[in-house]
């Protein structure tokens, strides 16, 4: 006969053992630059690097010809601004960037939408874009000078070309990313094609288009500096090259600071656009 197991002794309550808090393990992997503390940390880090740089220069640890101190760069920037030379150069660069970016963007949006919406445009457009997009656009500048002369046109065309391809790609990518269920919904209500494009596809593609603007602003800045270094008398690129040739490294870096500030300003502008146009996200 099998021996029946004895009934288990009732477990002693663990009342006397000290209760421990469950250790929190969910921290990290959520970086954010929005929090006030993190934002301040960024500025403190920047100021610390500038202070170290200044100290190293002032103590004679770094040759100012090779790396001028932040204060001397600031002085050079102020002198440039006071003399009017800064605005003179900047106005040329801004004009080239503005016109080139607008032309490239308008063409890119039109072609991108055509590729996103129509089969024939897609097969033709993607083939051309795939073939031409990888070409460094600055390599085309000599050819464009040959075609368009040595004025502003070839520089503007170089920028427009660079902006066009990136814009077209981000636009048709954005059109492709519009949820198909929204288009089907609109079709189920007999909404006309043009209204679907205007009220469904355009806003649906807008996040991708604005992300594309961020990229094309950088492309335009890169190309304007390159183009001005190759063939321009005025412009930030020409100024930086000239300062380098004359070993005026403080002025050279002043030009670089201006470019950096310009990039930052464009980034902020696009942030504002996103906040205004994509508030629904």
């Amino acid at each position: 006969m099998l021996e029946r197991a004895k009934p288990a002794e009732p477990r002693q309550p663990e009342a006397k053992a000290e209760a421990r808090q469950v250790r929190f393990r969910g921290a990290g992997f959520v970086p954010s630059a929005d929090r006030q503390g993190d934002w301040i940390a960024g500025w403190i880090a920047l100021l610390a690097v500038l202070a170290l740089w200044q100290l190293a220069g002032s103590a004679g640890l770094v040759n100012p010809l090779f790396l001028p101190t932040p204060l001397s760069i600031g002085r050079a920037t102020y002198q440039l601004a006071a003399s009017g030379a800064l605005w003179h150069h900047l106005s040329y660069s801004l004009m080239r960037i503005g016109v080139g970016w607008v032309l490239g963007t308008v063409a890119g949006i039109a072609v991108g939408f055509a590729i996103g919406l129509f089969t024939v445009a897609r097969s033709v457009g993607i083939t051309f874009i795939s073939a031409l997009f990888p070409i460094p656009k600055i390599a085309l500048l000599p050819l464009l000078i040959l075609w368009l002369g040595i004025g502003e046109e070839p520089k503007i065309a170089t920028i427009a070309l660079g902006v066009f391809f990136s814009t077209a790609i981000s636009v048709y990518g954005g059109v492709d990313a519009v949820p198909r269920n929204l288009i089907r919904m609109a079709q189920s209500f007999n909404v006309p094609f043009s209204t679907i494009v205007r009220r469904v596809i355009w806003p649906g593609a807008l996040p991708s288009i604005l992300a594309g603007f961020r990229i094309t602003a950088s492309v335009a800045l890169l190309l304007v500096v390159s183009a001005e270094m190759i063939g321009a008398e005025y412009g930030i690129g020409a100024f930086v090259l000239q300062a380098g040739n004359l070993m005026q490294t403080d002025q050279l870096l002043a030009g670089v600071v201006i470019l950096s500030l310009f990039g930052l300003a464009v980034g902020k502008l696009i942030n504002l656009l996103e906040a205004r146009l994509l508030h629904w996200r």
Partner: protein
Amino acid sequence: MDLIADHISHRFGALDVLDDVSFTLGAGEVVAIVGPSGCGKSTLLSILGGLLQPSAGAARLRGAPPADSLNPLTFVFQDFALLPWCTVEANVEFPLLHTGLSITERRAVVDDALRRTGLSEFRTTFPKQLSGGMRQRVGIARALAVKPAILLMDEPLSALDSQTRELLMEDFIGLLADGAMGAVYVTHNLEEAIRLADRIVVLSRRPGRVREVIAVPVKRSERGDMSARGQLLALQNDLWSLIRKQAIDAEREVQHA
């Protein structure tokens, strides 16, 4: 207005999805379509609503739609299909924009649809701020705004929790109570089908064929009564035994795919 599925067959490439499906939805009638996963229920609804061309057969309408109907065949989608950049009222107004109604008329229609669905307080809210149930209410308000003759509902409750499903089911029953609107209701939930439908079309596993068309023997208004419970439960069991074997096969097929 009747909606007729007339010998509809459909293939996606080499895949036969529907095979010779025929049935008629009478005016004001509610027909549920049930069947195992992948049997082509949603494909059939898309064909009935003109969003998909069938490989053979056709969806046909018989009789004139109501004079004031702006979109006789109107979908209510499983995933709500709301424009996330539009407020609740703009979403409801969206299908009216091209109809030639004046702003005042559109405003009146939107107000009425929002009132009927209990959304008047949420008119300036964006979809991301709403719960799943409220989003589906917006989808229903949008459908009501165009005064449909037939609602085409593609698993409209399947993305929702059970309590919200129950509340919206009560809304559907209320909306369809007067027989002014008909509906094709695609679902995998047999209980929902029995609560809402006048008839239930049971499809076989892929390619979907009509296996049976079963009339629900209790009036919709009486289906909540205790006396009807036993009868409805028996019907649900019958339906399940019809579908069960094929549902298991379909499930295995999906897992091996």
